[in-house]
């Protein structure tokens, strides 16, 4: 009798758990991965710091103060000031806004492009597939960085206003990132479209577009989430590299990349480490946290695909 009650209790508890959504289950699994949770915490911390932090700062990022040039960190300026007397702490936070936004936006765009084009290619096959995949191949034959450098140099050559450059950098990063994404999605589509449940959907008389968007795409959402997360880290890095070389977002708009540019100057590099260490640490911490979190997500959402 008592055993029975215990059993029914256990089974109702289990059934309640089972009823919760797939997302809920995945989140619960993710919570067990301490490293991934730590990664996520760092990402959240950096995001909050960058977006809310500047509101509490007494300085603005572009206010020049000649009396306070290249001052070492102090109570007044926690991370010191740069050659124009601007507060580094404030600039690092402002730069983070730009870097994170660029990373996020270019990720969204490349995931959107990659998923859509990859799905279309894998689902319709034939000539559509050929055209899309050959374009992707073409973009993938050239290493990304030189390609980005050429784009960046073209922007400088055409004297694109600095305000627009940020958006163009997002576009550039998406343009080189979508092919890899599209390939992965296409591969998944090719295998999914042959599965029995798609035959069953075919037999129901569903239209191809409905099958693609409503039946196939939800199946690759876990893959997309994982790829998207890892992609943000990559995009932040690429943006930093471009800006470091003066081909991305231009000063005075701060980004982590163009702030590290200070390290290019031997005197600053040796004597004023507070100019380049904070943005460097920010990039390092953010990207590594995103990648760790992404790896954790992959283990949970896409257990078949382990490195």
């Amino acid at each position: 009798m008592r055993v029975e009650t215990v059993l029914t209790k256990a089974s109702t508890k289990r059934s309640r758990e089972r009823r919760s959504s797939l997302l809920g289950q995945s989140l619960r699994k993710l919570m067990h991965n301490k490293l991934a949770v730590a990664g996520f915490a760092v990402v959240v911390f950096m995001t909050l710091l960058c977006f809310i932090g500047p509101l509490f700062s007494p300085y603005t990022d572009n206010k020049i103060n000649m009396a306070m040039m290249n001052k070492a960190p102090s109570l007044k300026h926690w991370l010191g000031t740069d050659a124009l007397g601007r507060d580094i702490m404030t600039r690092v936070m402002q730069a983070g806004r730009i870097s994170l936004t660029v990373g996020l936006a270019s990720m969204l765009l490349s995931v959107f492009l990659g998923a859509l084009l990859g799905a279309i290619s894998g689902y319709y096959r034939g000539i559509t597939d050929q055209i899309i995949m050959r374009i992707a191949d073409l973009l993938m034959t050239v290493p990304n960085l030189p390609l980005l450098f050429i784009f960046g140099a073209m922007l400088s050559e055409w004297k694109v206003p600095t305000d627009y450059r940020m958006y163009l950098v997002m576009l550039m990063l998406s343009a080189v990132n979508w092919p890899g994404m599209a390939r992965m999605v296409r591969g998944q589509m090719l295998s999914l479209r042959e599965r029995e449940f798609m035959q069953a959907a075919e037999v129901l008389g569903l239209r191809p577009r409905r099958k693609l968007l409503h039946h196939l795409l939800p199946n690759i959402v876990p893959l997309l989430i994982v790829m998207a997360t890892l992609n943000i880290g990559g995009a932040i890095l690429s943006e930093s590299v471009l800006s470091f070389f003066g081909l991305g977002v231009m000063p005075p708009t701060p980004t982590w990349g163009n702030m590290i540019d200070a390290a290019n100057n031997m005197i600053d590099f040796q004597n004023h480490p507070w100019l380049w260490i904070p943005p460097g640490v920010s990039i390092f911490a953010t990207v590594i946290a995103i990648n760790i979190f992404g790896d954790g997500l992959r283990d949970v959402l896409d257990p078949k695909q382990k490195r």
Partner: protein
Amino acid sequence: MKPLLKVENLHTEFRTDEGTVKAVDGISFQVRAGETVCIVGESGCGKSVTAMSMMGLVEEPAGKVTGGAIAFGDDDLLRLGKHELRTIRGHEMAMIFQEPMSSLNPVLKIGEQIMEPLMLHLKLKKKEAAARAVELIRQVGISRPEQIAGSYPHELSGGMLQRIMIAIAVSCSPKLLIADEPTTALDVTIQAQILDMLRTFKESSGMSLLLITHDLGVVAEMADYVIVMYSGKIVEEGEVTALFANPKHPYTQGLLKSKPVMGQRTEELYSIPGQVPDPLDLTPSCYFHDRCEHCMDVCVSREPLLQPLGNGQKAACWLYEEAAIHV
């Protein structure tokens, strides 16, 4: 009366590296409104390919329906455009597959998958469709239908999933339901329930059922008319009682003999000797000749045709053709 479905001289071929396989080789049959027709035969005899050809699931370039006609109502399914075919499939003609576990989309909720044909063919609004879906789940005998509608396929058992498949298939009241081995993946008690349910739906809605199976017990229970296939051809057909009482073709005789009888224990269950011939090197002959105990010279060199034998029964076997000539 005009039959609901009339398949005439259907040929379906698959191209492989070694040559062309004639999976379905010139079969003809018909299904009348409200009738249950069973296609029986062992694995690889072309049962499922017949169903797939009817549903337009044979995908080029691997396979192709190379000849024949499938008349459904006033349409020839093989000559319809994609769009017209889509309005028939799932609406007037539905299909249930063998593996319920893999026939439902793993990431969509059960309810959403039932709503799909309702919204598409019956043009129901989302809310009406959702209510109808719950109603359908109740009709296939699942308790707590609201909760089931909100769950995912992996949360249900195979038997429940097959009920859901039936709910989806009958949701638009089709005129013809094709069930491709609907109970093969399920255990025996569930099998009986599923078959019962199919019969109930058939009786209440007057739809026809084309049941594909290798289980003679299922045939005996369900069929009005039986078609026995072997190597892509029909070897015998007839009314179920006549055919079971008096099987003519040696293959059908063998099949019936190899069925275990409840309450009788024999030393060894009868099995037809030999293997199904390799579909790649078939020559004009009776394809069953090398497994047949009545094999004659003519069986090896010429193909027997399906002959009426009275009683509504037909068989493709030289034994009866010879007899017919002598009489």
